[in-house]
Structure formats: C-alpha cells, structure tokens
C-alpha cells in the first residue's frame, strides 16, 4: 500500500478551492442524507418483502455515504457530524428539492422513478470526482460506486416491471413531473470553474447533467416512456421548480421533515443552538 492519505492535502488548495470543495461536500452530504431519510417513508410499505429488504439496505447505504461526506465537510469547518445534522436550521441545508418531496399519494412509482433519477445522477456525479486531485475524495469514490450499483439495478428493474401496458402512462406522468426537480441535483453553489481548474472534478455540473440526461433519455426510450424534454439542448429551456434548495428556498415539506428529524434531539434538550427557527 502506498502511504496513507495526505492529511495536509487541504493546505494544497487555495481559499477559493477550499470553499468550492466544502460546498460540494455539503451538497453531496445533504442530498444523500435527505434522500435516505425520505425513503424511510416507504420502509416496510413496499409491494414485496424482497423490496423491503432492498430498500432498507439502500437507505443504510445512503446514510453511510452521507456520514462520509459530512465527515469530509466537518474537517473543513469547526463542527461535528452530529452538529451538521442536528444543529443546523432547515434553511442551512443545501440538498436539491427532489429528495425532500413527499411521495405523491403514496405511489410506489414515484419512489421508483425518483430512485432511478437520483441514483443515475449520483453515479454521474461520483464519476466526475474519480481521480480527483483531492485525496480524501479519491479514497471514497470507488467504494460508494461499488455500493450504488445495486440501487440503480433495483430501480431499473422496477421501472421495467411497471411500464408494461397500463402502468406506462403513470410512469410517464411521474417522470415528467419529477424531471425538473431532478435537475436541482445539478444546480450547485460551488464554483464549477474552480473545481475543474483545480482538478477536483473533471467536468462542470452542467456537463454532468447533460451526460446524465442522455442516459436517462435512452433508458426511458427503451421503455417507450416519452419525456417532454427531447434533448440536452432542450434541457436548458426547462424551467426549474419554484423551490430548488441548494442554498435557496426549500418546499414546506422539507421544513416539516426537518422538524421530525430533530424532534427527539430537541425533546432530549440536546440542542445547543435554536435550530427550529
């Protein structure tokens, strides 16, 4: 084994790179954390026992990844991982709004479509970090990619099963409804030019988004599901939802979920700051 991760790696980066990197970590962490937490709405309610078990594993993975990203972010600020989860106000979270939405009328196709859009996006975003000049990321990416592959397989298999005959129309409606929200995952407050120039990422978030869309588009074409967006060119014309998260405004669903997440922590009198504001 080569020597261990260079603990002074951070100091190799200038301030603006530090800031871009930290923002990037937190966006990843919050996406994973809120996605995993929201999926819990489905735990033990999926249509098959096998899916309960799979979903439990997926949730555990997403929370595990969130912990890894939070740890990397925590190294750049003076906060612990638990502080990041429990001491922040809801408006300090920076996930994209796709992951905070409740599931439409408890519909399983909403969950399946969302997992597919999210997991494919996650793979593209992770691959963009492969070979990163920042060692603490490089160390993690392979492991997360290894764990993510069955998430995509699970979502894809369900989509194939749900798009036979009459189910196709429902899936089509859901995909087109969620697509603008999925685009929020590629919004980023991190300076893309700095991330690319410093070798932390290979591509800008916009290019990652386009590559993601090509894959999503071709998958749904195979399933005969029509997307309202034809090409990556049209993607630029799609209006983002009113609430996108990412340092901007969230939906009220997030405020409610955040209240639930932190309730016991507050009940036990553990909070140091008033995170309920």
């Amino acid at each position, binding site marked *: 084994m*080569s020597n*261990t*991760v260079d603990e002074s790696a951070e100091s190799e980066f200038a301030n603006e790179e530090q800031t871009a990197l930290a923002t990037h970590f937190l966006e990843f962490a919050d996406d994973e954390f809120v996605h995993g937490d929201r999926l819990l709405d489905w735990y033990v309610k999926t249509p098959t026992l096998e899916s309960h078990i799979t979903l439990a594993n997926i949730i555990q993975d*997403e929370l*595990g990844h969130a912990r*890894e990203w939070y740890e990397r972010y925590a190294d750049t600020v003076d906060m612990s991982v638990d502080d990041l989860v429990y001491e922040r106000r809801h408006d300090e979270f920076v996930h994209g709004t796709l992951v905070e939405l409740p599931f439409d009328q408890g519909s399983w196709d909403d969950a399946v479509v969302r997992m597919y859009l999210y997991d494919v996006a996650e793979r593209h975003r992770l691959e963009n970090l492969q070979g990163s000049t920042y060692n603490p990321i490089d160390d*993690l990416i392979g492991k997360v990619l290894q*764990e993510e592959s069955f998430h995509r397989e699970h979502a894809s298999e369900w989509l194939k099963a749900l798009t036979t005959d009459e189910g196709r129309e429902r899936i089509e409606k859901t995909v087109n409804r969620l697509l603008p929200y999925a685009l929020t995952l590629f919004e980023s407050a991190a300076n893309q030019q700095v991330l690319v120039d410093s070798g932390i990422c290979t591509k800008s978030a916009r290019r990652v988004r386009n590559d993601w869309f090509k894959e999503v588009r071709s998958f749904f074409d195979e399933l005969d599901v029509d997307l309202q967006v034809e090409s990556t060119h049209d993607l630029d014309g799609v209006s983002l939802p009113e609430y996108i998260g990412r340092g901007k405004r969230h939906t009220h669903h997030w405020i409610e979920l955040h209240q639930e997440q932190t309730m016991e922590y507050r009940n036990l009198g553990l909070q140091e700051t008033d995170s309920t504001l």
Partner: protein
Amino acid sequence: MDEQTVPRVGDNATGLEREVWNALYGVEDPEMPISIVDLGLIYDLTVEDGAVKIDMTLTYTGCPAREFLLDDIKEAVEAVEGVSEVKIDIRWTPEWTIEMITDEGRQSLKDFGLEVPK
C-alpha cells in the same frame, strides 16, 4: 494504492508490532466469529515509539457496528503493554471484497456454517 499489498496480516511482525497484531487477531467482527485481521480489514499498521497507527477498512460504508468495532480495536490495542496511543484511520480504497478474507478466516466462517465462495 497498491491493491496487491492489502490487506495486511502481520506475517513478519516482531516485537511490539507482533504483540499489536496478536491483539488485533483477538478482535472479532461483531456479527461473525472471525477475526478482523482474517476478514481482511487491516490495510496498514505502524508502531513508532509505542504510538500505533492503523489503517483499516469496513465491509460497507453504512456499517452500523462501526463505533463498536473501533472501540473494541482501540481497547484491545491499548491493553498491549508498551502501547501509548492508538490512531485508527478508515480507508475505502481499495474496496473490500470477499477475496480479502484469509484462508484461516474462510475456515472460521466454514466452522460457523458459512461457505465463502473462492
């Protein structure tokens, strides 16, 4: 990182390092009767003037036993005479796979009723 050289099992260790490896062999995975060394979790171990530094991995990132396991390891290694401090760093590269389980580990799992595919 050279994937051929991990995991480490402490084959040629002597002195205090040998004692530390022995202590690690005594720590079992929380879910199965197999030593964490035989499970292939230890990626590197250095001992310098009583300060022990361990690089290790976990089988998956969401491992719920992470804190228990790290506490067990710390406790076991700190109990070795001559050890003054223990630092553990988690590494995810290379990714742990079942190929990293040693032959002894495979035997322990077989005795437990689990056959690990080659």
